[in-house]
């Protein structure tokens, strides 16, 4: 029995050592106790904080000159319906699309990013990319298109 346990312990120790060595010497290196499913925000992304805007703020600010709404969803979804006045800057095409809207973004005093709903990470990711590009005064509208439509607000197509 003692020998049995010893052998099992040796196998497990070897497996842990091999797994850790492989992880740290050969990529991709995984963070040991932190798993983020594909699509979800990573811990590093979550650590980047932005002030949030609720529906009422978005409604008021969208009618105020100097505020620019940025839709982070894919172009097809944007074309099916978006918040009036919003420009489309999908996170998946950031590099290509950013130059097209850069002038408006730099000129705006407030930027509000949004995506589909509370669970989508794209508005947060887009806000991070915009901040990295030097854009300030970014607000997140977490309710997104779903809340906007559910509350009966105008939609542009």
């Amino acid at each position, binding site marked *: 029995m003692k020998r*049995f346990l010893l*052998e099992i312990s040796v*196998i497990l120790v070897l*497996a*842990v050592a*091999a797994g850790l060595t*492989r992880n740290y010497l050969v990529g991709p290196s*995984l963070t040991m106790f*932190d798993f983020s499913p594909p699509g979800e925000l990573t811990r590093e992304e979550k650590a980047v904080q932005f002030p949030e805007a609720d529906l009422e703020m978005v409604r008021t600010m969208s009618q105020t000159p100097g505020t620019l709404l940025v839709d982070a969803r894919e172009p097809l979804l944007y074309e099916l319906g978006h918040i009036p006045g919003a420009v489309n800057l999908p996170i998946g095409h950031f590099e290509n699309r950013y130059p097209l809207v850069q002038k408006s973004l730099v000129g705006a005093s407030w930027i509000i990013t949004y995506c589909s709903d509370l669970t989508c990470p794209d508005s947060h990711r887009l806000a991070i990319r915009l901040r990295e590009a030097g854009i300030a005064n970014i607000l997140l509208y977490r309710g997104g298109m779903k809340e906007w439509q559910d509350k009966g607000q105008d939609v542009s197509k």
Partner: protein
Amino acid sequence: MSANRLSGWLCSPYLQLLCRLFLGTIFLYACLDKIVHPDRFAEIVFQYRILPRSLIHPVALILPWVEFICGVLLIAGWWVRSSSLLLSAMLAVFIAALAVNAARGWDVACGCFSATAADTHNPWVLILRDLLFLIPGLLLLFFPSPKIVFSIPFPRRIRR
């Protein structure tokens, strides 16, 4: 067939050799893709929705190596009972995990032989397959042969 005769047949070194090679080869083959792509395997482990997130990466990194080491040990004929105990325990866990998802009605990627989502089958078929793999594992565990045939030479006191 008398109980003694059945027991003698189950303890036959040649049947044991067959079980060792079968189980060892299966697990060696099963672990390779998971060792190469632990990130993809982690996603499959996550899809089972059984482990807390903090344990997904440790399991994805370590479990394939347990399969690898036990597979090598079985083929080499060393520490046969310990390896078969670990592999049988793992098979029992896989069966339980598959059964949980089958009961939920979820079709998740198996993660049995590859770390890609394409490895998706009917969970009940997978459970049946794992039960089949469990037979040689339990046989090696509970009916150890007094003699081991085709064992790679190793210091006698380490060999079982």
